[in-house]
């Protein structure tokens, strides 16, 4: 199964947010999406997830236009965790994760024990099984994020899309969450804020700037001194350790 964008353009009102982006997600990889604020990462994520339709160009799942699959079918293949989705409703962790089964349920195919098992499995995958009966409002930010990921996993997706999943988490939970996501048996596309995290966890990195995809490749190919200066406007040194892992050392105050 493939996930692909071809020459995608997208407008918010009259403002063009995404400009001619082509991108193919390779099955099994962890693809990181980086770029400065307002570069179109979130818009691109919602196009990839099928929530938004491109105004021009095509978004393809299995080489077929996404909207032709229908919402339900799409949700059975793509799990999407957006930024900061919260609720004031009184519900338990298990109920929140159960929502992930929605694309498979209908009047004629009601909830079964298999759904129970899948929800339990998803909770175990994100290490939240012991909190299944806790109320949503009592969770910390990191726990909420893990529940969201469990909900997406309960959709049994081939592709897991995460929009800045580590926002508002402390450093331990940031690393823990990304480590967790990397070990899951799904293809992951994640918009990431922290470039060192991208360096540490991603197989490939895509760089967005002003709505244009300006780079796509392996970590050493993408994370270069020039890219950091041109796209992010920072002066930094990219170092590699003995295992070939990249590490970015930022320099203070930089004027163009």
């Amino acid at each position: 199964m493939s996930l692909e964008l071809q020459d995608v353009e997208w407008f918010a009102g009259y403002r063009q947010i995404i400009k001619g982006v082509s991108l193919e997600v390779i099955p099994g990889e962890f693809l990181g999406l980086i770029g400065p604020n307002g570069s179109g990462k979130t818009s691109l994520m919602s196009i990839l997830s099928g929530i938004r339709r491109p105004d021009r160009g095509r978004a393809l799942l299995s080489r077929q236009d996404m909207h032709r699959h229908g919402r339900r079918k799409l949700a059975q293949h793509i799990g999407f965790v957006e930024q900061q989705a919260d609720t004031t409703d009184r519900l338990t962790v298990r109920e929140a994760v159960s929502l992930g089964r929605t694309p498979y349920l209908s009047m004629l195919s009601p909830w079964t024990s298999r759904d129970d098992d899948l929800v339990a499995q998803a909770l175990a995958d994100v290490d939240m099984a012991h909190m299944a009966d806790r109320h949503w409002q009592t969770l910390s930010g990191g726990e909420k994020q893990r529940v969201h990921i469990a909900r997406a996993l309960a959709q049994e997706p081939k592709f897991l899309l995460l929009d800045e999943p580590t926002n508002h988490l402390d450093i331990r939970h940031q690393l823990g969450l990304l480590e967790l996501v990397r070990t899951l048996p799904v293809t992951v596309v994640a918009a990431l804020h922290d470039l060192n995290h991208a360096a540490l966890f991603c197989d490939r990195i895509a760089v967005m700037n002003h709505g244009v995809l300006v780079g796509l490749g392996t970590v050493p190919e993408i994370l270069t001194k020039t890219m950091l200066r041109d796209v992010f406007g920072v002066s930094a040194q990219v170092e590699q350790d003995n295992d070939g892992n990249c590490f970015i050392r930022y320099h203070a105050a930089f004027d163009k």
Partner: protein
Amino acid sequence: MGLFKHPAFWHRIGAALAALMLLCAALAFAASVGETSIPVRTVLDTLANHLFDANRHVDAIDSGIIWNYRLSRAVVAACCGAGLAVSGVVLQALLRNSLADPYLLGISAGASTGAVSVVILGLGGGMVSLSLGAFGGAVAAFAFVSLLALQAGRGTGAIILAGIAGSQMFNALTSFIVTKSANAEQARGIMFWLLGNLSGVRWPDVWLALPAVICGLLVCLWYARALDAFTFGRESAASLGIPVRRVYVVLIGSSAMMTAVMVSIVGSIGFVGLVIPHAARFFVGARHGLLLPLSALIGALFLISADVISRIIVPGQVVPIGVVTALVGAPAFALILCHRRVLR
């Protein structure tokens, strides 16, 4: 089909039967209480006569009061309470706003404009009844608000703001017509109607209200899982495979129609649509498969009781039911709110 083997299925059937029995008991009670108190036994005999041709002996006047006056009224009250509560649940779920209520979409404001146009301006030249005028006004206002919301953008905020703008405009129109053309008598009559009035309700109203609320409830129940999926907002619902736009159109449309029918029959009874959903959520949480029917039940029972109270609280006079729902409902709701905080 595995459906019938599922234990939850039979639990639900049992619960539905219990709810239905409770509702019937409340209706019988409402029919026996009033200015002249009639024993429940007589009420049951009257029902048996009308429903099964039982030929029991019942005083003709008692029978008339029960069947033509109190029972039709109680059934419409029940429909109204259920319909408004269900609309409230749906709007609160879709718009992700706990202050949303069925009148948010300009329906009661539009209904009042329609009603005064008929009663005071004489629109339709006597061919159009107050109810029909109110219904027309409600639909017109809803159409106006929907168009405005579509033009204003796609967010839930746009719908709420469009509703406020529409309500204000139609309320102003009503006030304008009343101050310009109405005499004191008419103005008082309109005010009574606006606060909710079940006095004129007869069986033909039942055959309008009952199908409306049953259809509305069934449509909403069909989309119960879709409503659940809105727990974390629109985008999250979309990513769970919900056709957001279609669900919006179908559910907001049906709850608006349900509300418009109720308002055109009894006027705009406040409080029910806003508060009953919260009360029901307090008991069963936010799963709509349970929340919708329970809200309908509580709404129905609440409005039946409110109607009884409105009839007996001031001897020789009927207090507008909207006044009762707020006077009784607000303290009850305050209790629930406080209690909920203790539970957490």
